[in-house]
């Protein structure tokens, strides 16, 4: 899908008048399991790490945390390589396929066509038709096939052309994928990754604008993660493939063309951790996927108005990283959740419940959750725009919460 680009590595896909500079938006924390550099030593980055790109970008919006981990070096602008999010996913996928011959991909049009969003481009030519398998159109069945293959020793990645199509695979995902490890008494593992683009796009119509994370979040036995930047896309893809549990990786249709510089060295992120996007003092804003960018744009406005929001990209939708979230809540005492799910039964609803249960005493105000309305996504552009939470709404919600 076409996304609007502005400048180098610009990020926002929503309105022509925005003038975001990704320099200020992208401040991913480098929390990873391990990274080995070219000399072979292992670097472990902690969550409050200094932004490694900080040296090359303008800093007026950031209040970087002063804690730096030992052994960390500030890389120059030349190291690492720039790529788009779908390329980052591709890179992560290819590295894992290279590393482990059991990793295989199946889905519609993933082989010769290279995938509808080009995430599997070139892989069929390199690894053959069997490892990058084009399937007929039967989502429930090829997900079932993936489960059978996983139980027999492969590590399949099932691609839903659009997450919404995975509604057809709900039976296999819920009754088998999430369950068979448990009901077999631990005898059979299902190290499958189910991924695909979802979320509200650009006038794709209601059926292609589904937010499946809210439907899947109850299923016991699966893990869910949502990527939002090329850096975390690659890291989460690799982590998901290496995980022994079934993992659903949510990508967003409008984020595929985000550009970022990512490290050359290999890295794998943790599936259960949230990402500190912007540390702050006044309010905790929890978000994920595309809404991260709306939040960061609102953050720009908020900072100009004198607020200091802490923005956390929760990344792990199931289970929630209550440690990071909790630390933040204990610091700021106010929570705003910004999500793209529908209001009823969405990720925000569960997150609100989890925070209230665990951190009630630390809250100075009720948790506010901004979500999409409980309506199917309309096609008309203007209507569609208003079903998605906009930065202006985020700004006014923060102002209200911080009164």
């Amino acid at each position, binding site marked *: 899908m076409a996304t609007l680009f502005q400048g180098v590595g610009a990020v926002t896909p929503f309105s022509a008048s925005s003038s975001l500079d990704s320099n200020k938006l992208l401040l991913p924390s480098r929390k990873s399991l391990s990274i080995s550099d070219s000399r072979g030593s292992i670097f472990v980055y902690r969550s409050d790490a200094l932004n490694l790109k900080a040296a090359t970008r303008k800093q007026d919006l950031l209040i970087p945390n002063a804690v730096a981990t030992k052994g960390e070096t500030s890389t120059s602008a030349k190291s690492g390589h720039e790529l788009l999010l779908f390329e980052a996913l591709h890179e992560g996928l290819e590295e894992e396929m290279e590393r482990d011959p059991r990793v295989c991909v199946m889905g519609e049009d993933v082989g010769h066509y290279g995938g509808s969003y080009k995430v599997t481009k070139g892989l069929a030519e390199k690894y053959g038709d069997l490892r990058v*398998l084009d399937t007929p159109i*039967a989502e*429930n069945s090829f997900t079932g096939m993936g*489960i*059978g293959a*996983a*139980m027999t020793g492969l590590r399949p990645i099932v691609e839903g052309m659009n997450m919404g199509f995975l509604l057809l695979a709900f039976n296999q995902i819920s*009754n088998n994928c999430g369950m068979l490890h448990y009901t077999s008494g631990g*005898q059979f593992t299902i190290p499958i990754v189910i991924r695909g683009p979802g979320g509200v796009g650009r006038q794709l119509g209601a059926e292609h604008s589904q937010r499946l994370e809210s439907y899947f979040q109850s299923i016991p036995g699966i893990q869910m993660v949502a990527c939002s930047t090329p850096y975390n896309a690659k890291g989460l893809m690799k982590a998901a493939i290496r995980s022994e549990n079934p993992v659903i990786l949510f990508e967003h249709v409008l984020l595929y063309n985000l550009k970022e510089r990512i490290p050359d060295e290999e890295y794998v992120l943790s599936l259960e951790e949230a990402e500190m996007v912007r540390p702050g003092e006044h309010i905790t804003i929890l978000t994920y996927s595309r809404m991260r960018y709306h939040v960061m744009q609102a953050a720009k406005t908020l900072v100009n108005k004198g607020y200091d929001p802490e923005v956390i990209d929760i990344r792990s939708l199931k289970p929630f990283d209550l440690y990071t979230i909790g630390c933040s809540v204990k610091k700021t005492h106010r929570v705003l959740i910004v999500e793209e799910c529908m209001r009823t039964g969405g990720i925000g609803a569960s997150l609100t419940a989890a925070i209230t249960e665990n951190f009630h005493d630390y809250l100075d105000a009720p948790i506010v959750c901004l979500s999409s309305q409980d309506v199917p996504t309309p096609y008309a552009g203007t209507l569609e725009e208003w079903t998605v939470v906009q930065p202006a709404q985020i700004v006014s919600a923060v102002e209200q919460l911080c009164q």
Partner: protein
Amino acid sequence: MWISKTIFNHFKSRLNFTPNYAPLSLLSPRRFASTIAQNPSTFNSIHDANQVIDFPGGTVKFIPEMRFISESSPQRIPCYRVLDDDGQPLANNFVQVSEEVAVRMYSNMVTLQIMDTIFYEAQRQGRISFYATTIGEEAINIASAAALTRDDVIFPQYREPGPLLWRGFTLQEIAHQCFSNKYDNGKGRQMPIHYGSNKHNYFTVASTVATQVPHAVGAAYSLKMDKKDACSITYFGDGGSSEGDFHAALNFAAVMEAPVIFLCRNNGWAISTPTSDQFRSDGVVVKGQAYGVRSIRVDGNDALAIYNAVQAAREMAISEERPVLIEALTYRVGHHSTSDDSTKYRPANEIEWWRLARDPVARFRKWIERNGWWNDMAESELRNSLRQQLLHSIQVAENIEKPPIEDIFNDVYDVPPSNLREQEQWVKDTIKKHPLDYPENISA
């Protein structure tokens, strides 16, 4: 390959040839093995390759008559059998089984029969909560397993404990599963009869109908990638063949050339739905061809026919890398499960007739007795010994304690996350506080 509409119309009436073609792939150029028309008297043959029109998927012959393919053929697909109702071989062209294998097959069939009877009774006595018998389908269960090797992976529906027995799963282990005690492989998480054992290459039964069929295709894909000398086999009933997963799985297996055997136990009933309400095709075997899958219809109550067919299918599946569909015609003598009383929807005398006159166990017994491999004494010894074993197994299993509380929360993930550990602690605390509200035989 694409020709515009006007040219198509121009040539439409003139195209009358019948190439014998090998299956074409969309990605490979067209090949014709021959361009000789099959019925030269009926058509004028035009022989000019440049005027050939074909569609994606290959060339087709055009005919000026509008001919609908009938919904049914005049003859039903015939059914392969080796032994007649009296256990006499009909011909000599079948694969012989040795005395050892035959006696083992027979013993397992009897074991299955007695196991079912006793566990059914146990459920009726309230000792287990649920059971489903395989009465009438013993030949399918055992003979199919006997024709496979230990490396072939099995994806059952729920009426196929036979292959587990064949592969050495003990009656005691069966009892443990049915009683959901701590020695159950499944750690007490599934209903009775939902066996699973990775040691025996038998995948855990899931209650969902036909979901295992695509799993088997995925496993076959995995075996093919690893170039193993093994296939996967999946069982399902006539009812299961209506599920979407069945159709897509057959389609996939054919497209992917996966070494999988689809074994349909067409036993006439899906709970109370007879096959006439399940499909209007000639059973399940004709569906194979629709997906490009080689198929055969077999007498499901003839152990030797099943043995022969499955063995041949396995050979084809592995060496030719193709799926095979076997429809085994049989009858579900028992009720669907202990929650069903089938006399409500079918005549009791029909059930009795199939139980007695068409019993696959008795039929096979006649064959082995005629070969001098079995006799009455062996029979009564076997049956008595099995009864004792089963009653003992049930008694033992009944008295073993249930799995510990931790097993509610383990294996949901590889490592329990913090929220599950919290929930587990909460349950344990509640049990400590209110011990009288909880059963005694769980350990906290």
